[in-house]
């Protein structure tokens, strides 16, 4: 009857306060059936609070949330019956084996024994834990636990899968595997995936992304459209004296935007490939390295949060490092990216 609405998640003006702290400050968004929807933001932005409210674990202070047309406050049991969850922290029972954890889950969701036996094989094989099914979870590594949790969340064949930082703390290979798996299940099953992440490259794989900061959604669109907000290309240069280089750039190219991000200067430009030689020719400052690239969600995030920081400061970013240095965060979690930059700079 109401099972086939287009917008499977509807959130309107959702707020959650803890005393004076506004963890979620009036957010609204919708998620379409079959979509992979990403919630991108730094730690403490309100991602987990939002996900907890969406999956009935937490009560909103105000606002309404409909999951598959059911109000989460009025019909929590109903909502729980068609959602699957993977939390940020491990929620497996250490004392039990992998198989027993799956069995408990199946029982909690009222899955028949026959269905369970069938699905158990399927999910354990996809997550490559079949050989470990008789082992206690206590002996598992972090990656194995995460894979088992994803397998478990699929046992009940949920309509919506909530993943709260599904790949946090995993090595790059396992992360890739988890993502392959997520795409795979999305393709095979009629399932909507809502995930939170602080990895920008993961957010790029989503169909749509909402960027959340300080409890507010500051942008929400497809990754492509978000990147268009930044403009054509990004040039980052590193000079021996960034301050004077910035000053010089302002004088010579007042029409372009230059920002100091960490130890680099970032220029947003429409046709970067044409501007690069002009820049090299006209800039007297000694350049150590230069990089031309397409904007990433990282740039979008800096653009959006950067604007907030600059509000008090007449168009200049403060010389201290930004509050959320996502670029360093990025390199921290993705060593290959760091490596790329280094090789380019040589």
């Amino acid at each position, binding site marked *: 009857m109401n099972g086939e609405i287009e917008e499977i998640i509807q959130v309107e003006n959702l707020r959650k306060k803890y005393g004076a702290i506004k963890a979620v400050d009036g957010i609204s968004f919708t998620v379409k059936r079959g979509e992979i929807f990403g919630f991108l933001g730094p730690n403490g932005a309100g991602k987990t609070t939002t996900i907890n409210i969406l*999956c*009935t*674990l937490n009560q909103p202070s105000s606002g309404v949330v409909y999951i598959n047309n059911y109000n989460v406050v009025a019909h929590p*049991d*109903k909502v*729980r*019956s068609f*959602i699957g*969850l993977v*939390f940020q*922290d*491990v*929620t*497996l*029972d*250490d*004392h*039990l084996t992998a198989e*027993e954890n799956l069995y*408990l*889950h199946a*029982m*909690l*969701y*009222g899955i028949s024994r026959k269905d369970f036996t069938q699905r158990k094989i399927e999910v354990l094989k996809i997550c490559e834990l079949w050989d470990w099914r008789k082992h206690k979870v206590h002996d598992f590594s972090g990656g194995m636990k995460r894979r088992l949790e994803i397998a478990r969340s699929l046992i009940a064949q949920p309509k919506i899968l909530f993943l709260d930082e599904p790949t946090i703390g995993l090595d790059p290979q396992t992360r890739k595997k988890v993502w392959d798996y997520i795409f795979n299940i999305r393709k095979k099953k009629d399932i909507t995936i809502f995930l939170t992440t602080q990895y920008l490259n993961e957010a790029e794989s989503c169909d749509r992304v909402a960027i959340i900061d300080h409890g507010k959604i500051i942008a929400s669109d497809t990754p492509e459209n978000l990147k268009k907000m930044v403009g054509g290309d990004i040039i980052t240069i590193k000079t021996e004296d960034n301050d004077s280089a910035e000053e010089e750039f302002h004088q010579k190219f007042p029409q372009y935007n230059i920002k100091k991000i960490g130890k680099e200067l970032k220029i947003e430009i429409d046709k970067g490939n044409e501007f690069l030689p002009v820049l090299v020719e006209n800039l007297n400052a000694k350049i150590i390295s230069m990089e031309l690239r397409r904007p990433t969600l990282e740039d979008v995030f800096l653009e959006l949060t950067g604007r907030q920081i600059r509000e008090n400061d007449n168009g200049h970013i403060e010389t201290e490092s930004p509050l959320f240095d996502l670029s360093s965060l990025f390199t921290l979690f993705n060593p290959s990216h760091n490596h790329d930059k280094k090789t380019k700079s040589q």
Partner: protein
Amino acid sequence: MIKKPNLNKLSGIFILWYREILMYVRNRIKFFSSIFLPILFLIFFGTGLKTIFPLVTLPYDFAEFFFPGILGLSVTTMALSSTMSIVWDREFGFLKEILVSPVPRSHIALGKILGAATTGLIEGFLLLLAAPYLGINFSLKLFLGGLAIIFLIAYGMASLGICLTARMKRTESFSFILQLIIAPMVFLSGAFFPINNSPAWMVNLSKYNPLTYGINSLRWVVLSQTLKPTIISQLTTNNFITSLGILISFDILITVLAIQLFRKMC
């Protein structure tokens, strides 16, 4: 087919009970210590205390008095400490997995209560098997009656445990609270000494102690074949019917309270 949704819901209670039992059996140290500790109590404490009493001419054997007390103590401790699994689950995350499942909160609480009560029942069962060696005579009927009382005590204590877990976030603090609860409750229940002969303030306090009625009921049932009713009444504060009635009422009230608190805390 019509009853299917009900069955599904009951399976939630069952699975939580099942997990509780699984945890109990898997935890071998807990399992064995829970069996041996009361036996040690019986052997050493019982024998030791007996040496004080031979001068006093009692119409009953000390072991007969002491046994139901130890039984009550063991069952209480076991049932209460089993509810620690909720705090444990909260601390290590598994509680979330249970809470987002479609199983209603009340069924989760009931499953936990029944699971913890069952661990108490198992312990009581094993101790009861040892009773004949202490000179307490049994018929099968009495044995089953004893088990029923043990279950009622274990159930009430497990529910009490659930109430206590409401605000507990750490297992350490919970075990501390448990000791604070168990000690006065056991001392004021007449488990170790007949409460009748105690000062009035203790007698008054013991009236508000649910365990008093549990131990009373146990004595009435377990000793009924060994001792005369007039002697048993010296060891208890109330007659059997009153004791049992209060015990059952306590179980019902505390269940309602436990479910309410469990709903609130999640």
